[in-house]
């Protein structure tokens, strides 16, 4: 076999394998979210997590991919919009590429490999919303919002950074999506939470938060292990090529950040809450994974330890802080994905080293060294601008769409349905039929 053909085959194998790992993260989210919520809402949460990937697949195929990666202007794609039918001669890459998805012409794999890999990322952004709005949102309203985030919000913000749009041109770097995936999901979730309000009984009249216990920490732990595993597709796969030094480096950096974050979250929860709370440790690991997602191809292993350590601390403080603000997020999605998506994006501006990107052979033309490595504020400024622009766009559009959904079809289930549980109210069935569960919450 010719070397070029072998190259295409190996790269395609890598992109699809890691894409399948990212697909598997849907299971992780389903387990984490159902485990951290109550028995009476389990069917609803599982149904939301399951159907959201189906909705994402349809939405991203029909419009999302074209809007995100089609050639167009600085704000969104305009060519090859619908159903991925634009002209394309992949796996030809670089100067040999002829087609309308030139923002992805740097990787030499077939178009459908590119599409699948980008699709599973879109699905991840959409599923982040599910946990934050859990235990009170109407099933139908959630499905409609999922469709809208995958057709409009995620692809436009993604075009700015990954599709050759204006933030990419300004030199913002987000290797695997701390902003594109996690902050986007986080801002959309925050908008939803603000319009929904807290669950009944979460905050006492005097403002103090009451714990609403997750019903199965075994499931939550299973879910976080699945997500940690899936992240070895999320970050190393974002090379979209079987580049040996890069994928090995990124896999280790990803793991070390998660490990450091789990350790500092354990410590922080021990010191601040008196006992090492497992749900906080799990959130801590995820925080480290989200934070390293943007910088994973640009930072050293010691830097990844620092990023993870900070992320683990940040997530514990954020969980407690959101409760002070009466922002009810049952699974900590904002603390994990929003706060650490922002932090990870800024971490590029703090910890990036051009020599790392050069040594592992990732394409980082235009990257400046971070503030802590003598590059001054240039990269940090670009990162902050990008994070702020995405925040403004995603939060405001999400708020408008959530408000529209509320006006047209309603957002929140009735009080009596919420008390009885969404499993009976929305789906007419229980998750653990035949088991006796204690029913005071």
């Amino acid at each position, binding site marked *: 076999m010719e070397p070029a053909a072998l190259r295409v085959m190996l790269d395609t194998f890598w992109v699809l394998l890691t894409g399948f790992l990212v697909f598997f993260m849907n299971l992780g989210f389903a387990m984490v979210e159902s485990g951290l919520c109550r028995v009476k809402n389990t069917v609803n949460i599982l149904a939301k997590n399951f159907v959201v990937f189906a909705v994402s697949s349809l939405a991203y195929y029909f419009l999302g991919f074209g809007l995100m990666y089609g050639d167009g202007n600085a704000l969104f794609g305009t060519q090859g919009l619908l159903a991925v039918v634009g002209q394309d001669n992949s796996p030809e890459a670089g100067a040999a590429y002829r087609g309308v998805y030139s923002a992805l012409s740097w990787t030499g794999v077939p178009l459908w490999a590119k599409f699948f890999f980008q699709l599973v990322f879109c699905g991840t952004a959409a599923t982040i919303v599910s946990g934050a709005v859990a235990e009170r949102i109407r099933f139908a309203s959630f499905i409609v919002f999922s469709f809208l985030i995958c057709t409009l919000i995620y692809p436009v913000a993604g075009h700015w950074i990954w599709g050759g749009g204006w933030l990419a041109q300004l030199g913002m770097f987000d290797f695997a999506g701390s902003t594109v995936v996690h902050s986007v999901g986080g801002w959309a979730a925050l908008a939803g939470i603000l319009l929904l309000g807290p669950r009944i*009984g979460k905050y006492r009249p005097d403002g103090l938060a009451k714990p609403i216990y997750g019903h199965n920490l075994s499931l939550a732990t299973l879910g976080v292990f699945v997500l940690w595993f899936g992240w070895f597709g999320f970050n190393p796969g974002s090379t979209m090529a079987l580049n040996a030094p890069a994928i090995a480096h990124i896999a280790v950096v990803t793991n070390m950040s998660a490990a450091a974050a789990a350790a500092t979250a354990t410590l922080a929860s021990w010191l601040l809450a008196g006992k090492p709370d497992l749900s906080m440790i799990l959130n801590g690991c995820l925080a480290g994974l989200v934070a390293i997602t943007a910088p994973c191809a640009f930072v050293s292993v010691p830097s990844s330890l620092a990023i993870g350590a900070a992320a683990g601390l940040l997530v514990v403080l954020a969980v407690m802080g959101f409760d002070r603000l009466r922002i009810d997020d049952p699974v900590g999605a904002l603390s994990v994905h929003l706060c650490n998506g922002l932090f990870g994006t800024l971490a590029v501006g703090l910890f990036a080293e051009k020599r790392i990107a050069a040594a592992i052979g990732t394409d980082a033309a235009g990257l400046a060294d971070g503030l802590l490595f003598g590059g001054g504020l240039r990269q940090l400024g670009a990162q902050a601008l990008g994070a702020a622009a995405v925040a403004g766009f995603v939060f405001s559009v999400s708020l408008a769409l959530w408000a529209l959904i509320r006006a047209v079809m309603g957002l929140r289930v009735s009080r009596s349905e919420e*008390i*009885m549980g969404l499993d*009976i109210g929305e789906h*007419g*069935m*229980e998750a653990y039929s035949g088991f*006796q*569960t*204690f*029913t*005071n*919450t």
Partner: protein
Amino acid sequence: MKLVIAYIQPHKLPDVKQELYRREIYKISVTNALGCGQQKGYHESYRGVDEEVNLLKKVRLEIAVNDAYVQPTVEGIIRGARTGEIGDGKIFILPLEECIRIRTGDTGGPAIG
């Protein structure tokens, strides 16, 4: 001595506990129960087949009290559990023949204490 038994809506349990606390009634047993009264049931469906469920989830309280505490106990339960809608539950009061604290062997009023 009386035994007060009450069936209430599960989500009103924290309110009832708080109202009883206010009236210095601290000793209480709680179990899950299924029951049907006037409240109508709900529909479950499984794989396309419908079923009317009329045994609803309730919480059963048992509180043993000396006679002077019967009235405050009843008041506390009503104040905590009443929503004004069908399904709020019922209270039963039974005479209690004897009460023995296992640890000390105390009987009667002091054992309930």
